[in-house]
């Protein structure tokens, strides 16, 4: 039922992207997200789309699998686009009741929609190709310099690792509780918004209780194994850059350069 949510899930297969150093993928994702906000023309978004398509191809993750993750943000996407479409002042194209749809509104809505979709696909591509362990190792390493400023880097990384690890567990738990309540005649899909909200109680209460129980169990298990923070902790597989990582950074820099340049290329058309 909830299996279609792929956000934060790892997809086990072998590809260039899977083998890349997690640091490259984190930086790459950040660069990609930044580039989406740099782009201001169809050309820019076109370049980003091509880049994303190539990455998806390289990842060996089936496209349908990535798309399934989009369902989770569908409502958010619709609402964002609708607000932008209806509430942007400017040159009016036509109006609905008291709201007017403007040229600027259409432009903004399209841009926001594309940004949001690309952003989610881009970041889920990172989690799909990187194990949570690798991801947090990478993050910890990347943020390493901040330790000088007394930023609790290890703790942040550990919290993130746990959070990521718990997404599938809690989803599975939600699925189980949902099924159990459906078996008791609960309906989650009918009625108005108030009915739906009320129907969430039999789901959310057990879910919260289970989350707290799991958190307690985990803390106990960590303590039993003498976990005492990051001080003096060593890694079984320390991260080390390889040639392909250098190449990936180079490609990223190139991509970023192209995206910045695309701002200065005059393009006609509506956007």
């Amino acid at each position: 039922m909830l299996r279609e949510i792929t956000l934060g899930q790892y997809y086990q297969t072998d590809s260039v992207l899977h083998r890349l150093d997690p640091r490259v993928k984190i930086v790459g994702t950040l660069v990609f997200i930044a580039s989406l906000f740099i782009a201001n023309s169809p050309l820019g978004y076109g370049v980003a789309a091509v880049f994303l398509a190539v990455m998806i191809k390289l990842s060996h993750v089936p496209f349908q699998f990535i798309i399934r993750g989009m369902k989770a943000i569908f409502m958010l996407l619709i609402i964002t686009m609708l607000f932008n479409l209806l509430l942007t002042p400017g040159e009016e194209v036509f109006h609905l009741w008291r709201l007017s749809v403007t040229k600027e509104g259409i432009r903004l809505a399209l841009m926001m929609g594309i940004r949001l979709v690309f952003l989610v696909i881009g970041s889920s591509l990172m989690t799909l190709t990187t194990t949570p362990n690798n991801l947090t190792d990478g993050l910890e390493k990347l943020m390493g310099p901040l330790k000088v400023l007394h930023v609790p880097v290890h703790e942040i990384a550990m919290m993130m690792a746990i959070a990521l690890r718990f997404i599938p567990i809690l989803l599975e738990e939600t699925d189980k509780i949902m099924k159990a309540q459906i078996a008791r005649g609960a309906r989650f899909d009918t009625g108005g918004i108030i009915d739906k909200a009320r129907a969430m109680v039999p789901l959310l209460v057990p879910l919260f209780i289970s989350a707290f129980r799991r958190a307690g169990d985990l803390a106990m298990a960590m303590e039993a194994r003498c976990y005492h923070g990051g001080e003096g902790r060593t890694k079984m597989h320390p991260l080390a850059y390889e040639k392909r990582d250098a190449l990936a950074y180079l490609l990223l820099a190139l991509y970023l350069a192209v995206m910045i340049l695309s701002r200065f290329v005059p393009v006609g058309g509506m956007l």
Partner: protein
Amino acid sequence: MWDSPYCHLTGIDMSIILDHVNYIYDKDTAFERHALKDVNLQLQDGEFIGLIGHTGSGKSTLVQLLNGLLKPSAGAVYFDGADISDDDFDLKNLRASVGLVFQYPEHQLFETDVFQDVCFGPKNLGLSKKDAELRAFQALKQVGLKEEYFYQSPFDLSGGEKRRVAIAGVLAMQPKVLVLDEPTAGLDPKGREDILNMIAQLHKELHNTIVLVSHSMEDVADYVERIIVMNKGEVLYDAAPQEVFTHVEELEAVHLAVPEVTYIMRDLARAGIKVRTDVTTVEEAVEEILACYGR
């Protein structure tokens, strides 16, 4: 086993038929898993059935098909002659008729007090407050919960009591078929026996169909009339306990053990004492050994 899926037309009284059922999780992805392979079963009214299998044998998937939480990937599940995959199939009626108690059912408790929680199911059936409460009261009595607990928070109860409340929550819907997925998981031996005795008592009183899912032969052997053994998504055996337990080697090959007494009787027979080896309960074994010595 039967000639056609339309045997309901012949007037034979039966509630659930699984006809060449297959179930595949996450089809067409790297996670694809064939959980059920060509399962053919027929559950008759009033039967007390044990569904046994090692972890991952497909038994949990199977029980979810029984009340329409999952639909078969191929094949069909018929409930009282109607295909549950049909668009116009009445799923609400199916879920009222087939009560499913999940593993660790106490994890689904959510209300402020025990009584309210048990009322949840019957209320969802559209019953009036009065009828729902009457059913809840009956169900709580049936599971043997002390009245002093009725108005306490379910979260303050012990593990075994919580489980009783959760079972009562399904029982209060008065299903014709009651399916319990590992109802004894995580309980101590005393709690296990209590729950199993309670279920057997329910069957005696209500004459409903009960499917008891377990990975332990020992648990079910004393109670059920029929055992279905699952292995890797397929039905390995489907027969009376005495019959199933004659396949000691085959069962051990799929990591299932027969009850201890069956082993003892087998060893006795090997030692030259003329006892029957298809004995599954301690009581039977005692009788058989005494009979052998002519007492």
